[in-house]
């Protein structure tokens, strides 16, 4: 390895001593932002070169490449070292996030090197998500550019609090003090609302090496440290003071006598004997041991990967977050968040996506796009959908509550990625701002009487009979007959009917696609509460979209959702036209009418399909009751 003379001597004399000194190094992850024109790749190449992190064969191949493809004549073109992929070498641009490593006596550094153009906002956000500090490059000749603002905004959004404004190419403005001070003043004025704790502006030249590793004699007006010295000494973020959070990744169960919860501490610290609470389950216990292969620890802190055992046998699984008892994480299923879109297909509010947090994956949707944020001007602008590289403030609606902290307080427990359910691609990334529910801090009580107990008292198993089908197909008629039969058998039931619910609970909703989705969500949630009460619930709704029926299915335990497709051909339903609605829809008096100008997606695998052309309503009811009997719902 290419090393300085001091290191070389030290290694020769006492390699063990050398290793021990380097063992105690800390780690700093930072990101460099700026475009090729700002000299970013040159800066990184220079840091690697000056930190003597290159082998001689790498230097030799770099020198050869520089002569062949370089833009610096006979000098070394450091950018060639950094631009990794072949495609990029040819195009002369950096199109992805590359990670570089170098270390000094004091620190190891991981540098995320990302492209600066607007179309690579997502790449930059990726690099920023794990960085503690950002080096923002500006060309001294050009001063602050639109992209400087964009980069600052992205860094700020992703939670970076330390900034180095690298005023580069000072050699091209003769290291002019006035120019530097102008840029510094401009930047500080611009950045004052971005929440940075620490901004250092350095006049430098990556090309000539001024103020990179050693102070430059050409900038007597600058009395701060050169870049590398600052990177070596800036405090590394570690959330020790924050409340304890351990997102449970994996339940460690080697045998019946050991049950541990493995995960990486997101913040705070924990000791054996400390009381804890698991969110969202709300179960409490006390830490018994902190287990590692090197022996039990007396304390564990942020970023450590540990396994906790507890005093009590309580049920905790992946997705739960173990928290200090007196400062539990919040839990909610509705959030205000900022969302960055990373896919070519636009984000559509109401569409179902998967949301993956530190240790949990939950289906959900963006219920509202509040406004987009122009990454160049930071102005708010309206929008209905979110395109690639756009950022918006949104409301989220998840299908189950998750444990979280606001991103501003905790990057590990306040972040999530969005996954497309069809392609499995990572399509978005987000930061939770706050819960939309006031009750978020209320920890769910452990219920002594559960749904099983309630159902057992009624000698039945809870079930949600979901009748779907076109308007006029006979859903309500059949549902009413089923309920009557069950009542006669002494069973406990309830019925939720589309028309009736729209007069009360859902009277604020119309018939747009978004309102239909919300309509179904509320009904499904209501039915779920009734299931918890042990009832057999009949839900009679057109519910035209597969996704929403799936959402309802996902809400309840396996086997409790019985989808019944009341299958009546459109012509037959239209012919019957019991309520005269089809006539009105055809006449254009009703908009968004299912089957006419709004789609009906028939179930692919319903538990039951009732063909009302071949079967009377009584026969249909009989078939359904028989299904319940066969399934053991009426005999618990």
């Amino acid at each position: 390895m290419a090393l300085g003379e001091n290191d070389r001597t030290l290694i020769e004399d006492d390699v063990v001593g050398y290793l021990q000194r380097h063992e105690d190094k800390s780690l700093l992850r930072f990101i460099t932002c700026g475009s090729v024109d700002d000299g970013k790749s040159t800066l990184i190449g220079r840091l690697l070169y000056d930190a003597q992190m290159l082998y001689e064969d790498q230097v030799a191949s770099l020198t050869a490449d520089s002569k062949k493809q370089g833009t610096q004549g006979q000098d070394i073109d450091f950018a060639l070292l950094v631009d990794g992929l072949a495609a990029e070498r040819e195009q002369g641009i950096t199109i992805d996030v590359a990670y570089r490593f170098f270390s000094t006596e004091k620190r190891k550094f991981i540098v995320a090197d990302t492209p600066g153009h607007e179309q690579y906002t997502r790449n930059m956000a990726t690099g920023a998500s794990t960085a503690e500090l950002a080096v923002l490059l500006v060309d001294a000749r050009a001063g602050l550019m639109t992209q400087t603002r964009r980069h600052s905004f992205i860094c700020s959004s992703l939670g970076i609090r330390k900034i180095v404004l690298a005023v580069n190419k000072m050699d091209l403005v003769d290291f002019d003090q006035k120019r530097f001070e102008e840029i510094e003043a401009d930047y500080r004025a611009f950045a004052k609302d971005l929440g940075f704790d620490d901004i250092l502006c350095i006049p430098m030249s990556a090309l000539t090496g001024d103020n990179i590793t050693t102070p430059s004699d050409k900038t007597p007006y600058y009395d701060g440290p050169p870049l590398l010295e600052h990177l070596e000494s800036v405090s590394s973020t570690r959330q020790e003071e924050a409340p304890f959070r351990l997102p449970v990744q994996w339940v460690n169960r080697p045998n019946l006598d050991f049950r541990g919860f493995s995960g990486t501490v997101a913040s705070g610290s924990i000791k054996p004997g400390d009381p804890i609470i698991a969110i969202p389950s709300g179960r409490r216990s006390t830490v018994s041991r902190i287990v590692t292969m090197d022996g039990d620890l007396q304390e564990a802190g942020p970023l450590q990967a540990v396994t906790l055992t507890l005093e009590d046998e309580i049920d905790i699984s992946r997705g739960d977050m173990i928290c200090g008892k007196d400062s539990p994480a919040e839990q909610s299923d509705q959030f205000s968040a900022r969302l960055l879109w990373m896919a070519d297909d636009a984000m559509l509010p109401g569409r179902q996506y998967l949301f993956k947090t530190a240790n949990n994956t939950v289906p959900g949707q963006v219920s509202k796009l509040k406004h987009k944020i122009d990454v160049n001007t930071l102005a708010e602008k309206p929008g209905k959908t979110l395109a690639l590289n756009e950022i918006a403030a949104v409301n989220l609606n998840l299908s189950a509550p998750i444990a979280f902290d606001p991103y501003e307080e905790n990057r590990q427990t306040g972040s999530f990625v969005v996954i497309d359910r069809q392609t499995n691609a990572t399509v978005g990334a987000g930061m939770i701002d706050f819960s939309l529910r006031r009750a978020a801090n209320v920890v769910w009580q452990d219920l002594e009487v559960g749904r099983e107990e309630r159902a057992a008292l009624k000698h039945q198993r809870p079930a949600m009979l979901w009748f779907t089908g076109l308007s006029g197909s006979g859903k309500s008629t059949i549902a009413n007959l089923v309920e009557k039969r069950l009542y006669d058998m002494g069973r406990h039931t309830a019925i939720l009917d589309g028309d009736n619910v729209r007069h009360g609970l859902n009277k604020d909703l119309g018939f747009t696609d978004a309102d239909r989705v919300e309509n179904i969500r509320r009904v499904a949630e209501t039915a779920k509460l009734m299931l918890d009460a042990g009832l057999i619930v009949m839900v009679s709704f057109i519910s035209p979209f597969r996704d929403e029926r799936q959402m309802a299915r996902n809400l309840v335990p396996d086997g409790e959702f019985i989808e019944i497709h009341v299958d009546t051909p459109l012509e037959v339903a239209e012919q019957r036209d019991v309520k005269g609605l089809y006539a009105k829809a055809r006449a254009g008096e009703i908009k968004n009418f299912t089957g006419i100008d709004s789609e009906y997606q028939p179930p692919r695998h319903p538990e039951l399909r009732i063909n009302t052309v071949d079967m009377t309503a009584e026969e249909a009811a009989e078939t359904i009751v028989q299904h319940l009997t066969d399934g053991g719902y009426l005999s618990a």
Partner: protein
Amino acid sequence: MESLTHLDRLEAESMHIMREVASEVDRPVMLYSVGKDSSVMLHLALKAFYPSLPPFPLMHVDTTWKFRDMIAFRDRRAKELGLELIVHTNPDGVAEGVGPFTHGSAYHTDVMKTQALKQALDLHGFNAAFGGARRDEEKSRAKERIFSFRAPGHRWDPKNQRPELWNIYNTRMHKGESIRVFPLSNWTELDIWQYIFREGIEIPDLYFAAERPVVNYEGTLIMVDDDRMPLDGLTVETKSVRFRTLGCYPLTGAVESTAATLPDIIKETLLSTSSERQGRVIDSDQAASMEKKKQEGYF
């Protein structure tokens, strides 16, 4: 409390990655190539799941040309640790008699390593495979994700990688797709050595200097590990040598050395003036060779 060192942080990150795979993927496997990086990866896996054993088997793709000491070391370690070890060799290559001396390094590597690896993953239905590659090894690796997604046929598309933010990894995939997972992505060669030193991790003796029979084969010192080595016109000499990387013995150049202890070999590594990949024959093609090989399914 004491602050974490860079090794502590790297260790914790690797453990987090392994636990994530074990939690979310149904058929994971750890590719174990017997070298120092594999030794570190295995050590981290033992730590990540302790007191459980790692919930996945080890798999070695055996080209039949590995150093005999590597095979002995591999079998002994698996047995000592009580881990399931799967060994796969490409039967087509064996039938064809493929070897580096007769077929050249490129063809040998393709058939006995790349194709064999794909066969083995398909044969056992593994959909996530841990590999010990590091981003500092080679330029195109610097941009590969920690969770590197492979389309059916194991192809890697560098332009279509999933973004990785924070420590949240998207492991979802369709049938036929798979993920290569690199828990050592953020480690450098120096980190690996320091960690081996700190943790007292056992590595094969081939890394340590000893008197070994070698020949000068086309400018490289090759150890005569068995009688398949064509010796026509070559003189076998006994020299004190060691290896900086381990692979197929005909493709792995020895360096003359007397470094016989861990501190001594670390000292030699640190003071050496060439990067470790230089000893590997596979890189000496054109500049983008690794990127090309990876697109075809090489690790």
